[in-house]
């Protein structure tokens, strides 16, 4: 059974072998630096700022005529008409827009045969017939 001295000796052999495989400190540190900082943050910030500036320049250089012409707000509001505006024009709409007169019926309210009479005419014709009946 190996004692502590044997163990120390074997471990010392192992140590010598391992140390032969250890690379140079400077070399390892150099690789560590390359691995840790492939590109510094400040470089990334500079690249991003440059890209943003380039995009801004390109957008500004597009001619105005190429963009959508919106026009002045006053003109666009007053001239604008809805494409479904005709749906709001219902029959009899003129009744709401005009002041009615006594004894006159609007053309749209008359029947096609012209048989319908205004209340005043109807009253006239009624009195006329009742007089004729009384006389006979």
């Amino acid at each position, binding site marked *: *059974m*190996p004692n*502590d001295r*044997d*163990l*120390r*000796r*074997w*471990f*010392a*052999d*192992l*140590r010598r*072998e*391992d*140390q032969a*495989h*250890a*690379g140079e*400190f*400077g070399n*390892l*540190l150099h*690789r*560590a*630096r390359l*691995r*840790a900082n492939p590109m510094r943050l400040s470089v990334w910030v500079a690249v991003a700022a440059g890209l943003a500036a380039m995009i801004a320049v390109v957008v500004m250089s597009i001619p105005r005529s190429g963009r959508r012409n919106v026009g002045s707000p006053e003109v666009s509001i007053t001239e604008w008409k809805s494409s479904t505006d005709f749906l709001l024009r219902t029959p009899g709409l003129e009744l709401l827009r005009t002041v009615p007169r006594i004894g006159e019926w609007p053309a749209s309210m008359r029947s096609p045969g012209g048989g319908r009479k205004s209340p005043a005419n109807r009253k006239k014709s009624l009195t006329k017939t009742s007089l004729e009946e009384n006389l006979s």
Partner: protein
Amino acid sequence: MEATDLRRELELLHRDSFGWALSCCRQRKDDAEEVLQTAYIKVLDGRAKFEGRSSFRTWFFGVIRRTAYEQRRRRWLRDTLLARWFAGQPLRSDESAAPPETGADSSLLRSALSRLPERQQQVLHLVFYQDLTVEEAAGVLGVSLGTARTHFDRGKRRLRQILAPQEVGR
């Protein structure tokens, strides 16, 4: 401690640090180098600060141990959650990585050590390989002295049992 002093201390310790990193990475040379690189950067960039509560060697070995643990956890996450999930690649086996080429006696010792639990391996390495005291080893591993002693005694007994029939170097 100034950056130049730190660099000089790290350079003096470099070979021993490599041996310890190998032990923390289960004898995988590439992993040990990667861990050592990260640990150097941590120290030189000030992410790991030496406050003089122990020797520089004990403190830096602790940094290496934690870095190796972080690397192993990251690798596990990457392998299991990404490679296994998306690409259906097999998990990287710990046994697949070959240790550095060594002599016959050293491979017997390495093989015997690999059969011990990790903590026992590490305490034995720190005491026999790095010539630290058990107390210093406890500091490196972040365990109490009693725990380190238990690991040391059990590890030594088990290592003797494994090596007895083979008698390395005889």
